[in-house]
């Protein structure tokens, strides 16, 4: 297998497995992530600080006081050429989402115009998409979820918003993401879920995991408010959202 090494300064580099989003490529990324973790547990790969998986690449961060790019890259190459195991795992997760409040969906009209659809067709496209969680990142608990209906593909906004509200549901390219916190962001906001993707009160603060299969369920504002109150109070039964 041929990979590309991309420089991220003198404390990291990225190992790129391909130029597409596919379960096979993502599987290789997660496998190298696991293999480096195992090698480090055995005392190898001195100087590696951590590894950060994404759709089609793995970033390896290192301490230039303990190692160097020139020493580390051949060691990673050797790991890859020894062969990486494939990975598989599925949960089915349903995310309730309210699309009908303009405050929750400020970009719905623009997305409809740019994709030459009605707002209702945009919502239907999102609801019928078969999504898979590819990677966690950007901020704690944020999942990049691929599988958006092709009729809704758009690039991200050219100027990111300074503030996107917590639990906003958004789309761009072939993906959907849900913001775990208020933060800056460049995606199109088409709805909001009452659930929190990161809740530090829970034993497992991060809700979604790589490999999860995911669909959205349309809810009205009243249902949104009811579930939001349960989430806030910590009384929501999260298992109702997940089928193992």
């Amino acid at each position, binding site marked *: 297998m041929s990979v590309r090494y*991309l*420089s*991220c*300064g*003198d*404390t*990291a*580099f*990225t190992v*790129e497995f391909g*130029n*597409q*989003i596919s379960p096979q490529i993502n599987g290789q990324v997660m496998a190298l*992530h696991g293999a480096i973790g195992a090698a480090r547990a055995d005392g190898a790969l001195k100087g590696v*600080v*951590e*590894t*950060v*998986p*994404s*759709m*089609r*690449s*793995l*970033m390896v*961060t290192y301490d*230039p*006081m303990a190692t*160097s*790019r*020139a020493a580390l890259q051949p060691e990673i190459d050797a790991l890859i050429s020894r062969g990486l195991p494939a990975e598989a795992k599925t949960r089915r997760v349903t995310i309730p989402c309210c699309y009908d409040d303009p405050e929750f969906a400020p970009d719905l009209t623009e997305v409809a115009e740019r994709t030459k659809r009605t707002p209702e067709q945009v919502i239907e496209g999102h609801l019928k998409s078969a999504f898979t969680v590819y*990677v*966690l*990142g*950007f*901020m*704690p*608990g*944020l*999942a*990049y979820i691929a599988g958006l209906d092709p009729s809704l593909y758009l*690039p*991200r*906004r*050219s*100027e*990111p918003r*300074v503030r996107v509200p917590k639990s906003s549901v958004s789309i*761009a*390219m072939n993906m959907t993401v849900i913001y*775990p*916190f*208020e*933060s*800056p962001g*460049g995606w199109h906001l088409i709805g909001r879920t009452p659930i929190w993707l*990161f809740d*530090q009160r829970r034993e497992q603060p*991060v809700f979604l995991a790589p490999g999860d299969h995911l669909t959205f369920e349309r809810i009205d504002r009243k249902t949104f408010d009811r579930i939001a109150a349960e989430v806030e109070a910590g009384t929501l039964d999260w298992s109702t959202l997940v089928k193992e």
Partner: protein
Amino acid sequence: MTAALKVVRPGLFDTLQDRGRIGYMALGMPTAGAMDRIGLALANALAGNPAGMAGLEIGVMGPDLLVEADSVRVALTGPLSPALIEAPDAPPKPIESDRSHLLKRGQVLRVGMIEGSSTAYLAVAGGFALPAFMGSLSTYARAGVGGFEGRKLQANDSLPLKLDHAPPGEERKLAAPFDYGHGPVRVVWGPQEASFSEQGRATFIGADYRVSKEADRMGIRFEGPTIEHAVAVEKGGADIISDGIGPGAIQVPGAGLPIVLLADRQTVGGYPKIATVASVDLPRLGRLLPGQTVRFTAVTVEEAEKLRREQEARVARTIADFQPARPAGGIDLARLYEENLIDGVVYEPAPA
């Protein structure tokens, strides 16, 4: 009674930071940590602490802190203008930065403004008695985790201290302010320099970029000439499949202006990153103020690694060269006796 520093008046953006939350980026958890690792390391060394202990990162303007402990040794680093010590029974006394100070119960440390930098540090001997989150005390305010209640300091916060009196020892200072370097900021091309046209890369390296008002712990948006992508933005030229973001990554969204991503940066992102600031110059970025101007220059990975190792050796030499610092206004015998009684240990005063 628990020893503490009480926030009488908060500064603009004071957060507890250590060297960062390491090992959780795969869960999407940013590292956070000190914007200027050198300032924190020197403050810790002056206070007699290990290098990785959490200190208070002061953003632009610092807090007023009331000492609620028998005594506490603090160390300040950064260009403060100058800090003051106030007590009910004495006139305010200016104190220097880049050294340690012994404070007593009832005194108020007014940290004040930082001049010519956005960032300064305060370390306390023995550290803060606060719980770590995911192995670190670094505050990550967007998620409300780490530090003091996961946020910047507010009035009436009481920061618990590990020690309720300062360990014995003399006050120390830097022999000279640490030189963070001048001239262009060193960067390494990549990871996505190929997403930019030759002209775009030349613009980035050749032009002056000014720090905009949108500059915080997450990153700095620069203003200046726009950088051309290799493929038109309307055709997805500013989109990549999201990948990991290292410290100092310089992303260029469709609008063409560079954003340098710093301590609180997201773990992955989907804008192309033209270059990455060499780690030797990250502390300089962490100190920039809105309106200041920088230029970028490219070095290789090997050069950047070498520069970093030389800088770390210089930090170690700076610490080895610490000088004894006499109390302002000469040796205060009464104070020395008092502290000896508190400590129960007699030690030699600093040589005159």
